[in-house]
């Protein structure tokens, strides 16, 4: 990987993003491009895997290898990619509906499995591509096309689930705070193990409630809380407090690093086949099964 130093430009593809002007996802793709460039991870050594949704169009706007899969399934696909070729840097990118509604089962299991990959969720608290229905992270009372009388379900708590399931890096960013987000994504990619980065990434077209402005007023950095909140900065090694902070407090919602645990073996490090040094991509070759047949005599 000691190839030429990368710049952000090397990560930008010829396909012009199709997002609405002002969409929060622009900030996310930029953060990811910047992080990869800074880490000098070559596009051909990277696989960006997405689901379906506005946010899931992201891989097309970057130069790495990528898959734009089906709704809710990026995590198992990404896991398959990583286990097949542990040399690749694997990044999952999708939406809140994709990851927390239809993908919720895979999400919980990916968190406990600790496959070495980064999962970035562009959480706009709405279904963008399908033109504005309730998402699992929509707030109570939110009126949408599917809940014209107001949403009656409390929001899905991805940070809490990730903590419960033992994910080793659990964080939240905001696409309106690009510096913080870029650093966060970089740290997530560097993290050995499964890293969740939930990003508040406003949908300027269908979510008139959770706007950039609203987020700016509502969210606070848990690791550097504002003075007026009068709470201690959060230490990412404290999972129990991370959990407590995953719920809104004083009407405010936290972002930052909720939990980080280093040193835990990844799934790939423990898999007996991979552990034996096999690379399932490079080691595709005819196999002599005679001894196996012999054992069945």
């Amino acid at each position, binding site marked *: 990987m000691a190839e030429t130093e990368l710049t952000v430009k090397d990560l930008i593809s010829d396909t012009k993003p199709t997002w609405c002007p002002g969409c929060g996802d622009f900030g996310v793709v930029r953060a990811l491009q910047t992080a990869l460039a800074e880490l000098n991870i070559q596009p051909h050594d990277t696989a960006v895997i997405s689901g379906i949704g506005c946010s899931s169009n992201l891989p097309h706007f970057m130069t790495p290898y990528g898959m734009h899969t089906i709704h809710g399934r990026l995590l198992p696909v990404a896991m398959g990619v990583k286990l097949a*070729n542990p*040399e690749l840097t694997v990044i999952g990118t999708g939406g809140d509906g994709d990851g927390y509604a239809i993908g919720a089962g895979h999400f919980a299991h990916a968190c406990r499995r600790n496959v070495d990959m980064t999962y970035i969720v562009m959480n706009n608290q709405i279904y963008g591509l399908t033109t504005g229905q309730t998402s699992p992270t929509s707030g109570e009372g939110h009126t949408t096309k599917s809940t014209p009388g107001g949403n009656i379900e409390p929001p899905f708590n991805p940070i809490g689930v990730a903590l419960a399931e033992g994910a080793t890096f659990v964080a939240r960013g905001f696409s309106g705070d690009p510096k913080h987000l870029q650093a966060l994504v970089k740290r997530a990619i560097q993290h050995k193990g499964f890293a969740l980065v939930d990003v508040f990434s406003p949908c300027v077209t269908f979510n008139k409630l959770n706007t950039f402005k609203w987020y700016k007023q509502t969210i606070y950095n848990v690791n550097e809380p504002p003075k007026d909140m009068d709470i201690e900065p959060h230490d990412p090694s404290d999972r129990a407090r991370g959990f407590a902070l995953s719920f809104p407090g004083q009407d405010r919602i936290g972002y930052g690093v909720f939990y980080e645990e280093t040193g835990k073996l990844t799934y790939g490090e423990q898999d007996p086949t991979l552990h034996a040094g*096999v690379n*399932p991509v490079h080691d595709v070759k005819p196999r002599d*099964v005679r001894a*196996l047949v012999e054992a*069945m*005599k």
Partner: protein
Amino acid sequence: MDTIIRVGGSAGDGVASTGQILARAFSRLGYHVNAYNSYQSVIRGGHVWYNIRVSEEPVESIGDRIDVLLCIDHQTAEVHAPLVAEGGVVVHEASKVDLSDIKLPKGAADIGITALEAAKEIGSPLLANVVAVGAVAHAVGLDPESVRDVIQAQFGRKGEKMVEMNYQALDKGYEFASQVEPIRKHGRVGPQRALIPGNEGIALGAMAAGLTFYAAYPMTPASTILHYLAQVGPDNGVVVKQMEDEIGVVNATIGAAWAGARAMCGTSGGGLALMTEAIGFAGMAEVGLVIVNSMRGGPSTGLPTKTEQADLWQMLGAGQGDYPKALVAPQDPHDAYLAGIEATEIADRYQMPVFVASDFYLSETSMTLDKELPPVDAIDRGAVVEKKEGDFLRYKITDTGVSPRSIPGTPELMFIAASDEHDEDATLISDVLAGLPNSLKVRIDQVDKRARKLDTLLKELPAPEIEGETGPILISWGSTAPILREARRQMAKDGVETRQLTLRWILPFHTDAVREMLEGETFYVIEASSSGQLEDYIRMRTGLWATGNVRRYDGEPFTPGYITTHFAPLVQEVVA
């Protein structure tokens, strides 16, 4: 000359392990063996039986009678005694079975054993099965040495003491049975034979062809592929993963295949249903993977431990829209090995999903191989591009339908594999291009290109051939074929000549060849589906109406007798 042994008892009685010792004794003597394990969807208490048919000739079915029946419980006597052949032997555990009101056939001998008691005396109630094995082995004319050989192979690792106790139990069994005459003698007839269930056959074939990734979620009757590969995978370069569900399974497999592994997954009907969306994705993104679907009694949970062949339409209709997929249905474990190789190679070379259709009967029935398993000499990964030379168009329109692909990790050949429609360069046309005049053509060209894969593949595949010289044509697929073959042989003896056609490749289908074969002929379809899925499929392909059919859907495997009995009136109808 064939011999049929059946062991019956309740779940938890160790029926299968008892049967397996006997089956293995025969296969190690060089006999051909078919060992069918019949059980229910319950862990303890249900009725279980294990059927072992052996012969010096290849064995094609479980048969229609019993020569030696071992009754571990009373229900076994009630249910199976009617099948005991004249001159057969019934061995029964006297503490549990009362034969007084069971009608045994003429000349059948009856051996009461008290295996449990004897086992306890020897030192462990677990040895009761081995006592019973001894009694059956005597009745069937097996030398004690040949059974000891199996015990040594099976328990050797557990220490000499263990083996010794087993030997004692075995001897005790022989002693119990000593008063009856063995029905015949079974000695060595050739070198040891491997005894392989269909599932293991598929797994071995896939491994031979370079499989490196297998994912599954447990589901009878596909689970044993998972168990087997979990065992042998690490030493044979296969990453094996049980996922959280079948959706996770198929998507992880697609991820691995796209990354460049040779990847397979396995399930049964309910799991397949969950996989269908992603299979369509693989069709669109042109990712090659193998999906083993081992069919069982449906619909829904149905009869989870019984056999059926009624997922044909589910496989054909998997996922929305039109896209190419292949489907091969092997007929026995040897063929399953071949299908494992073919499917693995074709999936990779044609970059599309390939189904291997099995069923409960084929997947779990251990059968000996009558031929060596041919090795795979080299791997052809198809249109893989390793270095950029000129433009790289991942979804290039080609005559064969197969486009060049790159393996992630290769410099300068990056592309995005999408589930949306896209152009040659992998750029979506669904978002800002769909419907524009140029894109209409892009769309049509991509659809047609993908469809051409099946035309190209068809040219590689041999057309099915008719077996037999004269008479009506009996058509089947999968595991029914060998049973049908035996049935035809029996009918021929009774003067009814028939021919046979086995549809091994369902997709792509040799439509022209098959239509030509069947045009103007009398033909029947023999299948394990109540609605006649294969018959419908044949009509769809050829426009031809079957003269009649034999269908079985009570969950039991076909037997030659079932086929001949149900076929006889049909032929008469035609003659009349």
